[in-house]
């Protein structure tokens, strides 16, 4: 990587960079797999240098921690599904080149209203009505949180990256605001498990699977989004606006309308992810309910090139690392943050390898020829 950096500044570069017209499918994947393998070697080196541990043993512990028992496998799967849901949610916005860095806040808002419904109506409504209310409320909350920056972007071209980023923290503060009223037991500054006895508003098991609903809802959303983006007229409009707003305008597409519509969808789906996190997983709400997933999802969506099936793979891989790290932490008496370091290194390699997929390096022969003369 560093080689490249120094060569650019040379007067007579050793390599010429040309853009590839296209690359064979297997070749692109060979490069990606190669990058991941290289990153694992780099991680092994880092592990060895920092901790003196045998990297192979550490990797074994990661696998054990992530999928070692049936329960662990399910938790890993559940979290991977949530991450997938958020990644799918931000995909239409990103395809439109609308940098929605606010998924974190949109998810939190969805989770917040879900928790509110559970607390105030969890034991009063019949389950069918209750879940409908929770779902609709979370969708609306996420939608509103996504629409606010979209309106300003559409009307005045306000920078959406920074706007959505700021809204995350407003959402976080709203959650702490509500926690003051909902805390249980009093003075703990935490909401605790909501409706622990009646399990009101907890997503029930489906087909005997604890996280059956999560599976069905997320896979359903993923499939519908795939079809929406690939085959619908609206999906095509999103792609055109993303490529070039001027072209879109010329073709008679109402750009403002597309921005607003797409961000409503994106926010709404983030809201559903919040619903799944609260009702389908943690049964509580805190500022860390979204837990950085809104940011990780951006990386997932980008690395997958917005391909729904690759997204499944990438989100599983990232959650796998995260869960594995908890095991390393307890087994080797290390710090859980080790996983962030390793994940970061893997991401750097994967991000960097895209260059070799899009561009070709050609050796410059000029120097040798001149020397021969």
């Amino acid at each position, binding site marked *: *990587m*560093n080689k*490249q*950096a120094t060569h*650019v*500044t040379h007067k007579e570069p050793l390599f010429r*960079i*040309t*853009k590839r017209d296209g690359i064979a499918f297997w070749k692109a994947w060979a490069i990606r797999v190669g990058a991941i393998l290289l990153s694992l070697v780099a991680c092994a080196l880092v592990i060895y240098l*920092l901790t003196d541990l045998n990297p192979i043993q550490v990797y074994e512990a990661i696998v054990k921690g992530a999928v070692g028992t049936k329960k662990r496998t399910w938790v890993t799967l559940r979290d991977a599904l949530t991450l997938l849901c958020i990644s799918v949610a931000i995909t239409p916005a990103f395809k439109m080149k609308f*940098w929605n*860095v606010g998924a974190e806040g949109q998810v939190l808002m969805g989770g917040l209203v879900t928790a509110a419904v559970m607390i105030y109506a969890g034991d009063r409504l019949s389950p069918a009505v209750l879940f409908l209310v929770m779902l609709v409320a979370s969708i609306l909350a996420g939608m509103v949180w996504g629409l606010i920056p979209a309106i*300003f972007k559409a009307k*005045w*071209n*306000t*920078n959406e*990256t*920074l*706007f959505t*980023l*700021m*809204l*995350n*923290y*407003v959402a*976080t*503060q*709203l959650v*702490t*605001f509500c926690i*003051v*009223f909902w805390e249980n037991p009093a003075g703990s500054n935490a909401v605790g498990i909501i409706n622990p006895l009646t399990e009101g508003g907890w997503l029930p098991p489906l087909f005997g699977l604890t996280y059956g609903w999560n599976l069905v809802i997320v896979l359903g959303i993923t499939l519908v989004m795939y079809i929406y983006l690939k085959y619908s007229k609206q999906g095509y409009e999103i792609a055109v606006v993303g490529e070039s707003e001027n072209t879109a305008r010329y073709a008679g597409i109402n750009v403002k309308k597309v921005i607003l519509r797409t961000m409503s969808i994106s926010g709404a789906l983030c809201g559903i992810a919040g619903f799944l996190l609260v009702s389908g997983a943690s049964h509580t709400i805190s500022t860390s309910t979204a837990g*950085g997933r809104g*940011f*990780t999802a*951006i*990386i997932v969506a*980008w*690395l997958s090139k917005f391909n729904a099936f690759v997204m499944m793979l990438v989100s599983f891989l990232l959650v796998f690392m995260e869960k594995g790290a908890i095991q390393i932490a307890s087994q080797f*008496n*290390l*710090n859980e*943050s*080790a*996983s*962030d*370091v390793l*994940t*970061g*290194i893997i*991401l*750097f390699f994967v*991000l*960097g390898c*895209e*260059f070799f997929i*899009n*561009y070709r390096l050609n050796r410059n022969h000029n120097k040798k020829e001149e020397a021969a003369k």
Partner: protein
Amino acid sequence: MNAIIIFIQKAIAQGIVILFGATGEILTEKSGNLNLGVPGMMYMGGIGGLVSAFLYENHAANPNGLIAVLLSFVCAFLCAALGGLIYSVLTISLRANQNVTGLALTTFGVGLGNFFGGSLSQLAGGVGQIALPVTSAAYTAKIPVLSNLGVVGEIFFSYGFLTYLSIALALFVTWFLQKSRSGLNLRAVGESPATADAAGIAVTKYKYLATCLGGGICGLGGLYFVMEYAGGTWTNNGFGDRGWLAIALVIFALWKPKNAIWGSILFGGLYILYLYIPGLQRSTQEIFKMLPYLVTILVLILTSLRKKKENQPPASLGLPYFREDR
């Protein structure tokens, strides 16, 4: 009166961390790179300074304050600049997406900081919280005579040297961007790299230097937090959302470091205002904590509404530049 003095002192103490971050990020953004890795680089800077000072204090027979300060300062700067270098290699040379790379850098840097920070006490033999008496004493040393000048002394001269450095640095970067030739070149790169390239400016070199130096400056914010604000101790995730606040301050300051100086103190004040307003409920305190973000959003909207040319972000901010893509 006393409460007001303490409020101002605390507001400044809160502000300096984000002032360093904002100054560094402005330098970076002026080259057209939107580096969302500021939180990560702050952690890298903080931990770099902490670890080096820790090793020095534990291995030197008679630790000297000046050497400890120099060592930790250089290490903090280099560590954070390394974060900027990773970002530069990926986005400038390897042409990866800026936002995604920045977020990955944040994951990496925060993880690195917490990993070493959390492991330090283990290194120390499990004594619990580490302490750096010599280094933190040197960092928090006040100006000898001036700090005794009553109210004036307490408001203006009761801080460690990093506080004054941060303000001097912000002023220097302002001068650099507006008056020096390299600064003008840098701005040209950020506004329109293709034009700058045609004019013979080494675009890649400017982008690399601005991003790495900017990263290093962000790291000094981390150093300040660890050494002066926290007194040479480490708490995992202790920086909170200060890294993002620094990015918010860049917008608030309209990409001008000298605005960031008073902006940072204002942000610091807003950040802790809830502690000083009497009669607030716990819940309303939380609403007050939103203020810095709401103010930033407001500024963001207003600048986009007024469309004043000199208040806009660098035109090529966030966009990659490849000569052959034209």
